């Protein structure tokens, strides 16, 4: 008993904080998996939101607080709401009685899912293999200066090195706003 206690105490506890990112990371994967598997669309969407939240927390844990909070603000505050609204605005959006005879055929449906699962599994396997065998990933060390991205530096970067992309993003967002409103607008004749 005492030996166990000693063993536990001897663990590198001071390294604990830098492994805490595993909690949001694994929770994120769990939520994403649930989102893929759940049949109820709203549940799926809520799981995705949880996954997004965990991703944001993961970003914060990795030292990118700004990106983390932006992730929360954009995904939880905006994208999630858009998705939920879209689900509510497309009633019966769960694929049930489709006009396509092919999709009503269970075997075809199953084949379709199986093919998708196989492809994504292949991709996962390929990526994992690449990560595992990449010497650069294995030998990567944390830099001596812990990575930090202060807001002031980000702001300065936005207005100097990435000014052009910033302007591009501004145009893109405006165009997306207008375009989305235009596309989703009801036709006057209907």
């Amino acid at each position, binding site marked *: 008993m005492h030996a166990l206690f000693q063993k536990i105490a001897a663990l590198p506890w*001071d390294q604990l904080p830098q492994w805490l990112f595993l909690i949001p990371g694994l929770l994120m994967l769990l939520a994403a998996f649930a989102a893929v598997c759940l049949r109820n669309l*709203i549940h799926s969407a809520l799981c995705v939101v949880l996954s997004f939240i965990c991703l944001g927390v993961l970003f914060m844990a990795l030292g990118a607080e700004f990106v983390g909070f932006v992730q*929360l603000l954009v995904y939880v505050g905006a994208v*999630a*709401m858009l998705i939920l609204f879209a689900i*509510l605005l497309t009633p019966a959006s769960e694929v049930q009685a489709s006009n396509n005879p092919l999709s009503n055929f269970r075997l075809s449906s199953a084949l379709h899912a199986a093919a998708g699962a196989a492809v994504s599994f292949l991709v996962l396997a390929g990526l994992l293999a690449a990560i595992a065998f990449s010497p650069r990933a294995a030998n990567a060390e944390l830099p001596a200066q812990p990575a930090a991205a202060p*807001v002031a530096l980000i702001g300065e970067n936005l207005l100097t090195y990435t000014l052009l992309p910033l302007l591009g993003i501004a145009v893109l967002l405006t165009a997306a706003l207008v375009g989305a409103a235009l596309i989703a607008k009801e036709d006057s004749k209907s």
Partner: protein
Amino acid sequence: MNFFALLKDFLLQFLGLFKNLETLPVECMRLLREFLTKLGELCGITMPQWALDTVSALVLIVAILVTFLVLFALMSVFERKLLARAQNRYGPNRVGPFGLFQPVADGIKMLTKEDLVPRAADKVVHYLAPIVMVAPALMLPVFLPFGRGMVAVDLSVGILAFFALGAGTELAVFMAGWASNNKYSILGAMRAIAQMISYELPLVTSALVVALVAGTLSPTGIAEAQSGYFCGFLPKWFVCTPWGFAACVLFYIGALSESNRCPFDLPEGESEIIAGHLTEYSGFKYAIFFMAEYVGMFAVNGLLVTLFLGGYNAPFPFLEWVPTWCWFFIKLWAVALSMVWVRTTLPRFRIDQMMQFAWKFLLPMSFVTLLAAAAWYYAGQGPKAWMSPAAWSASALIVLLSYLLLGTFCFTRRHSATNRRYLFSE
């Protein structure tokens, strides 16, 4: 040295802290950490840093929770009393002196009520909704500086974090509305979300105005930027500048709307859609929603105080003997009670009017304040702007002109009653 001697020693030190009220809370935390370290030494172990951090964080959390729950309780009774006074009634006056213990009675009542869950409801989501609602609301106050050097989490992106967590409320409202499986609930939720999204934009933009001038997203930095006086005795609060005043009014309106208070309480408008997304909630879950709403309101008011009303700074030099955290809470109460005042005074908006107000007036106006603040900053060459007539006149001109223009265009009655559209109410 034994444990009791240590305890006595620290108790004496603690009592000694009351000589300086200003630093009392900060010193308390320091003393706690010291005590823990000494305690560890007594037991023969060196306290690891993370353990100290965890314990002091827990203590902080408890302190803030207690503070805001007490604020919530006091607010609920004060609001009822004030409403009653406005309506020529007495209000709660039976429980305790002047009815001050009414919240306790209410809490007991709520706890003992039956917790009803509709059969058609999505049980899990229905259960989770109050939690998702209250968690971010309780997290919000940690970013606020209650006094000089008194901030639980001093983030350099504090304001962003505040709004990012605040976004969780919409999710909770949606969950509550959808899970209840009741058309009034879902309609109320849709209304609430539409309203929140619409009013979040002016809210965030007017906060951005302050960040622009203060040059930081950290609430502490912003509060610090408003310390000091100009002309020797006038407060250097941002609300005293033309752009700051405009942004403050916009922020106040946004805060009213975000906390679903009158005249923006359409999502819960009893006469229209029963109680909106709260229709199917009862008992303690309902109380949690209620609490989250009030705590959220206090948090947003705290942000308003930090951003515009000088945070914890005293208004005049001769009042500086009052501790800074007292000033923060005085201002917080002032803003909160002004919201009660507004509630007693104004009728509820119609939904189309409300949306028009947000999109056609508040949003452009908040962009204009951004412009005015930029004009202030550049005409006055940064921090020197307080004494620059050019800065004052430029920003005042921009704000006034655009207010007149927008006001003229937005509030002329072009579409009178003939062309009403009630969004989410048909």
